[in-house]
């Protein structure tokens, strides 16, 4: 069976000019030749930090941007040259507050987009009711969107993106900015769509989201795909590693550099959690490094020290760091 989405050596360069007289051109290479393939019915995650090229990829596939070079196919069609045909068969949902007419009601928004997406009149009312039910907004459709919470807006976005029952759904960071409950509800909706057989390309920078939802993941960093596979495959890249988590307060860059130099250390990452810095140290299984690390941290204020198995997040951090 032909893939639902096929991307080969895709590049995209942004050029911007500034200055009135001495025009200065800035060139940013957002995509540097990515290739990926998504099978029909698959939920594929594109995982990467901000500015990695996730949204650029989605915009090219949804016909909103032209690639600089390379090829892309969605349902066998070229989004650059066959934009109109592609648009009728895909849905596009992005995260955040935007993309809706705030001063109008949810029903006004859905009716308008249903007409724009050629939903037949005879089916329109039933389709809108069905989608409102799916996203849990039944009974609230008569309220103005500006009165909605972020989670409700995001669910309305999903309903809008599904109006014409697209074969492929593109979700660009749909849970961004949502509270934990709103994000969980939305993930449940996405899982339900996947279970119903919808092909979904999801971008996110939340590891647990990709782990929980996706059949396969591609990690993208600086416009390049640095790894791809199932969540288990990616975890496998750090399977022979152990993680030591050390909670510190006020450890400077020099201390972190000293930790990197400790014999047996593969990688060091630092996360800030409230007032504390949590130093994540990777090392091969069996390497006894804890005492050596604590010696280097002598004089620093320490909290908990934990040794654990690596997670997908550790794999992701390692992949992005080494990109």
């Amino acid at each position, binding site marked *: 069976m032909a893939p639902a989405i096929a991307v080969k050596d895709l590049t995209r360069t*942004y050029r911007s000019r500034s200055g009135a007289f001495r025009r200065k051109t800035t060139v940013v290479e957002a995509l540097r030749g990515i290739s990926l393939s998504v099978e029909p019915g698959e939920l594929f995650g594109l995982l990467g930090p901000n500015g990695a090229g996730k949204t650029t990829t989605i915009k090219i596939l949804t016909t909103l941007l*032209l690639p600089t070079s390379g090829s892309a196919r969605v349902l066998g069609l070229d989004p650059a040259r066959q934009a109109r045909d592609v*648009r009728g068969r895909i849905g*596009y949902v992005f995260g955040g507050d935007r993309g*809706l007419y705030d*001063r109008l009601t949810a029903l006004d928004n859905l009716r308008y987009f249903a007409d724009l997406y050629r939903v037949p009149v005879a089916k329109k009312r039933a389709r809108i009711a069905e989608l409102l039910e799916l996203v849990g907004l039944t009974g609230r459709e008569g309220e103005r969107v500006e009165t909605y919470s972020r989670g409700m807006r995001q669910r309305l976005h999903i309903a809008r993106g599904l109006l014409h029952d697209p074969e492929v759904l593109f979700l660009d960071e749909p849970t961004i900015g949502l509270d934990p409950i709103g994000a969980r509800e939305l993930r449940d909706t996405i899982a339900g769509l996947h279970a119903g057989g919808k092909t979904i390309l999801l971008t996110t920078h939340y590891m647990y989201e990709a782990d929980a939802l996706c059949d396969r993941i591609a990690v993208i960093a600086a416009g390049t795909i640095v790894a791809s596979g199932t969540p288990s495959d990616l975890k496998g890249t750090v399977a022979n590693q152990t993680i030591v988590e050390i909670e510190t307060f006020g450890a400077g860059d020099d201390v972190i550099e000293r930790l990197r130099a400790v014999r047996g250390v593969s990688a060091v990452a630092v996360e800030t959690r409230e007032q504390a810095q949590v130093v994540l140290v990777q090392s091969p299984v069996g390497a006894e490094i804890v005492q050596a690390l604590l010696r280097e941290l002598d004089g620093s204020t320490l909290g908990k020290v934990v040794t654990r198995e690596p997670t997908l997040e550790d794999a992701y951090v390692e992949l992005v760091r080494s990109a």
Partner: protein
Amino acid sequence: MTRAFFSGMRIHVKQFTVNAFDLSAVVLWPILYASIAYYLLDGKNDPELLLSASLGAAVMTMWALVVLGSSGALENQRWLGTLELLVAAPMPFAVALAPITIASGVVGAYSLVATLAWGALLFDVPLSIESPLAFAVAVPMSALAIGMLGLMTAATFVIYRAAFHLGVAMQYPVWIATGLLVPLSVLPAWVGPISWFLAPTWGFRAIRDAALGGPAWTDMGMCALLTVVYFAVAAVCLRVFENFARARATLRLT
């Protein structure tokens, strides 16, 4: 396509009317223009001239609402993030965009009625219409033609992020070139031919001739012709500019 067009009209008129600022402009502008026409011409002695000036002022409002309304609406769509969604819809972009400019023209048609009503109420401007049928056709015909001129100009707004500023810049040149602000007779001769290609010229003439007597149907024919030409040019421009925007990534502000 027709359904999407009328749905778009409904949604954009609704969008427009829930904005108190826009709505107050629609209410206040006709009063302002009717007052200017009255005091500028001191038209008590010439009621026909006064009515003609009021109609001219109303057509000025119509153009202002179309060009500012459509450029403002487009900038607003960009801020709302809905511009991308209109482009991403399977409909031709012109079908999604035309309702925005024509909705502004429809609101402008209301302003014409309001200008006449205020003129009659406050300044005793005569409301005698020579040919009510021609007048009833001329007003929506002018709104449509001016809306389509707006659509053609709106095509350029798609590629410029500061669409509203561009809209403001386009307001006066059309007022001047169509003789609505100052008579064409006081302008250089080369301005005359330019005015023939601008819908407000024929829209104003159609409404004025229907009200005061004259070849209103010929003027309306010119409005219809320009409507078709504008739409054809706009459809081509929108395709080109849409590709331009896709290449330059200007559909969204972020």
